[in-house]
């Protein structure tokens, strides 16, 4: 699959039996990235012209500990194929314990997914530091590979992920 540079427009044509694969049908992975490490590493990757998979969409958090399970759960309910939480290395969280809390929440989320009937591996946590641009790229690639193996989320509607505004938690 062709990879794109971060920040460049995402219309991509994948040569697969001559068919165009629209953006919405490609795997969608949400990466919740903490400001001080993960987002900084992603930024650095961009500056170094390193490429990470376009399937991964970054959501910028002040700290991975800001992650609410509901946030990730709603993304998965809307049809996201996977969610990643990327925080600082153990012991290095800018807010001291945020990444520890995030790790426990991701574990809890995995158990929730298993109960619901989704593969727990669709939610995963990664840790790295601001300087580790290559590790960031590797993490995103790892996630894409694993989700590819699992296949698109069974919760996609007509093969598509719902946009945030279509998803109303007060009705189906």
């Amino acid at each position: 699959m062709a990879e794109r540079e971060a920040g460049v427009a995402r219309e991509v044509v994948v040569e697969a039996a001559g068919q165009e694969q629209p953006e919405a049908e490609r795997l969608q992975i949400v990466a919740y990235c903490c400001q001080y490490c993960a987002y900084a590493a992603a930024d650095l990757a961009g500056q170094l012209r390193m490429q990470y998979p376009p399937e991964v969409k970054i959501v910028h958090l002040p700290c991975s500990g800001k992650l609410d399970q509901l946030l990730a759960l709603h993304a998965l309910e809307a049809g996201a194929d996977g969610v990643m939480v990327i925080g600082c290395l153990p012991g290095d969280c800018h807010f001291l314990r945020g990444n520890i809390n995030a790790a426990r929440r991701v574990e809890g989320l995995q158990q929730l997914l298993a109960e619901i009937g989704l593969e727990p591996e669709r939610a995963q946590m990664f840790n790295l530091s601001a300087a580790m641009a290559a590790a960031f790229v590797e993490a995103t690639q790892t996630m894409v590979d694993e989700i590819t193996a699992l296949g698109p989320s069974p919760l996609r509607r007509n093969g598509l992920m719902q946009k945030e505004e279509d998803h109303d938690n007060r009705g189906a």
Partner: protein
Amino acid sequence: MIIAERKSLEEIKGLVGEAEKVLVVGCGTCVTVCFAGGAREAAITAASLRMASRLDSGPAGEPAGNGKAVRDVTVQRQCEWEYLDEIAEDVKAADVVLSLGCGIGVQAMVEHFPEAWVVPGLNTSFLGLPTEQGVWAERCAACGDCILGLTGGICPIARCSKSLLNGPCGGSENGHCEIDPGVDCAWQLIYDRLNSMNRLEVLLELQPPKNWRTARDGGPRKIVREDLRLSEEEV
């Protein structure tokens, strides 16, 4: 406070059954504090039920169906009519109400909304407190005749596995109850406390058999405070 735990999603799905429109009702008091049925838990339960019902409806290989319409709402306390009035319309619109209140909350909903079919999403367990973050332990058996003044403030009815009044039994070992090393021997705690306060002579008195009439054994209980009741005009 009342300590409860959420039932498994499996059990909840069974209780909700075939109903299409489900209202999950959280409670903002005890079950919020023990992380079983507050607003967050209600939202998570609603999302879980929506997702699971979509995954379950399609046979293997087919895409997930539409699933159930599950909404969530949370009231300050499910056991008081005034708070329930606020959600009357939501309740009416649902086929089934999944209450994440304690057993009292579930029953209050049924009494206040007799046309609604309400199922419990929690197992109400005991009256207790958080001994540390994430750990809750039983403290009170609501026996209706408090004897904490005799035992230095440690309840043998709730905390002794055999509710002994003249404990300890022979199964007390290293301060733990014979049934589980994770359970304190209440009588060791009582002994240590009374000893530290030089009040051990209390333990030498034979406590007579308990009057269980004031406890649940005597039948469902009720308290009426005439000084607080409203007259017909006031109601």
